[in-house]
């Protein structure tokens, strides 16, 4: 279970990185398209203009992260990792916040900036959760030696 916890947490971190890559690709694919004379409006965007596929993938994969985070939480119930449940909850909450920010960005573009920044937080907490699963439980909370 510990391994499952670690692997799921690492998958979440990896997916966040892929999400960033998809956005980076989409922005530059669209810029190149426009610079070479292409027209990007809603009609073109919704009809397979370069980069639009990556943006759709980004939206779809965002929800996949939420499902993986749910799986991480369930695994944490059985994994007996100190504070494992707490970190799984933090990852899940971050994922939820990310989806909410991503959805709200359609209404108010500046929220998109927060969406980008919180992605780094999610990446960080996912890696932290994975690292916690690596530590043997016995040395998890060492009692400091008393120097007399």
């Amino acid at each position, binding site marked *: 279970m510990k391994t499952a916890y670690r692997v799921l947490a690492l998958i979440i971190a990896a997916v966040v990185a892929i999400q960033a890559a998809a956005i980076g690709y989409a922005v530059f694919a669209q810029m190149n*398209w426009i610079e070479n*004379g*292409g*027209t990007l*409006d*809603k*009609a*073109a*965007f*919704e*009809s*397979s*203009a*370069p980069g639009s596929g990556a943006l759709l993938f980004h*939206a*779809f994969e965002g*929800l996949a992260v939420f*499902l993986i985070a*749910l799986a991480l*939480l*369930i695994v944490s*119930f*059985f994994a007996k990792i100190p504070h494992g449940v707490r970190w799984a909850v933090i990852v899940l909450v971050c994922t939820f916040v990310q*989806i909410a920010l991503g*959805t709200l960005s*359609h*209404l108010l573009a500046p929220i998109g900036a927060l969406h980008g920044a919180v992605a780094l937080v999610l990446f960080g907490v996912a890696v932290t959760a994975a690292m916690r699963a690596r530590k043997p439980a016995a040395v998890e909370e060492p009692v400091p030696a008393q120097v007399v």
Partner: protein
Amino acid sequence: MADRSNRVRLVIALVATLAILAPLAWLWQSSLVAKSYSVMGMGYLDYGGGAAGVHDHEAGARSVADITVGTTRKADLRVDLVAAQQNLTIGGKSVPGYTLNGTSPGPTITAREGQLVEVHLRNASVKAGVTLHWHGYHVPAAMDGVAGVTQDEVPIGGEFIYRFVANQIGTYWYHSHQVSNPQVIGGLFGTLVVLPKAGRTDPVDVVAAAHTYAGMKTINGVVGDLKVPAKPGQQVRVRVINTDNGPIETWADTPFRVQAVDGFPVNGPTEVTDRSVTITAGGRADLGITVPSDGKAVRVQISKGTAVAVGAGDPVPPPQPAAALDLLSYGRPTALPFDPATANRHFDYSIGRRPGFVRGAPGLWWSINGHLYPHVPMYVVREGDVVMMHIDNHSGELHPMHLHGHHAVVLARNGVAATGSPWWMDSLNVLDGETYDIAFVANNPGIWLDHCHHLKHAAQGMVAHLMYEGVDTPYRIGGTPRNRPE
């Protein structure tokens, strides 16, 4: 002691797991649809405050397949269309797609008012099957071309004959409504123009079907400008048809009039100079221009990148106006042929977005009145009813809403009443945060889709139906034949 503690811990873990998974499993299970199902059993019946009558598969219902123009009258105009799945050459590139009679778009069908049009559709090689839907045209229900609702898909080697009387003049189009999401994007469509009995009203009449193939913007399947010869002083009608999944803007470097919207004439159109015209997905606008007396060429821009260039020369593309024309106040008001105040059905079409499952797949899905597909409303009407519909979009994205078989008139947007020409439409650009009040007379019995014409959204379940009581369908979605309307 430690064993007991472990057991308690395990029980808590199992209960917590169950608390997460059980609701998800229930939601997943309830989103599943049968391998084959009838739209008659889908969702819930919404009577809009009107009378509840004969519905569903009750005795005495007539089949949608029987609602035709009959077979006795001979066709005035016969068109043969052969659908094929093949590569297209667009802008010098080869892209996978579909053709009708070897081209995409398919041929423009030009009929005269009152003619009986008969279209023989044959499927030569479209693997998933094909149908033809007459977008915006009030055809008899059996001719609406929706696989699994008004007919079965036409398999390879199969044929279907569409017959309808061309009672509406104006600009329309036809497209597949079997697996319509990839097929229309891939080019399985054509245009339909119905002229008045006396013929053309403008000396120069141009059809300009805008479509994006694999990211490339085209007019009538060709990348770049459509050059149209015209003499100084001539009246030109440019029939712009948006066959894409999102709205386009059109504007010109000379004053123009919006002569018709979605095929219906605008009453008292005035000259537009500093505005663009938004044409939503599936929508049409007829723009009227006069070629300047000095013969200078004019451009009707169809989004950036494509244009109809009328006259001699190669004018510079005009900049896009900062604002779009508001059809709510455009043109001169005139009496409606019915009184919306007498409406006896009041429906809500509230578009949202929420997490859940559609056909077993998790996602952030479009909701209609809070429900996800297939638990969507079936709006029930009786022939002769006056129907009001309140559309409310709070889904975060725009939706081009399209009701089959009818035109509705826009009464208000965001609570502000219409003050211009009656704005008749079959495709409505509903932005996020907007509300519309529309009205129509239920005068075309059948079972009609009322859906988002962003065909990917439709495929994601953004489809409701308008059902006339006493009408049933023998067709089914899924199963064999494999009807998949979206």
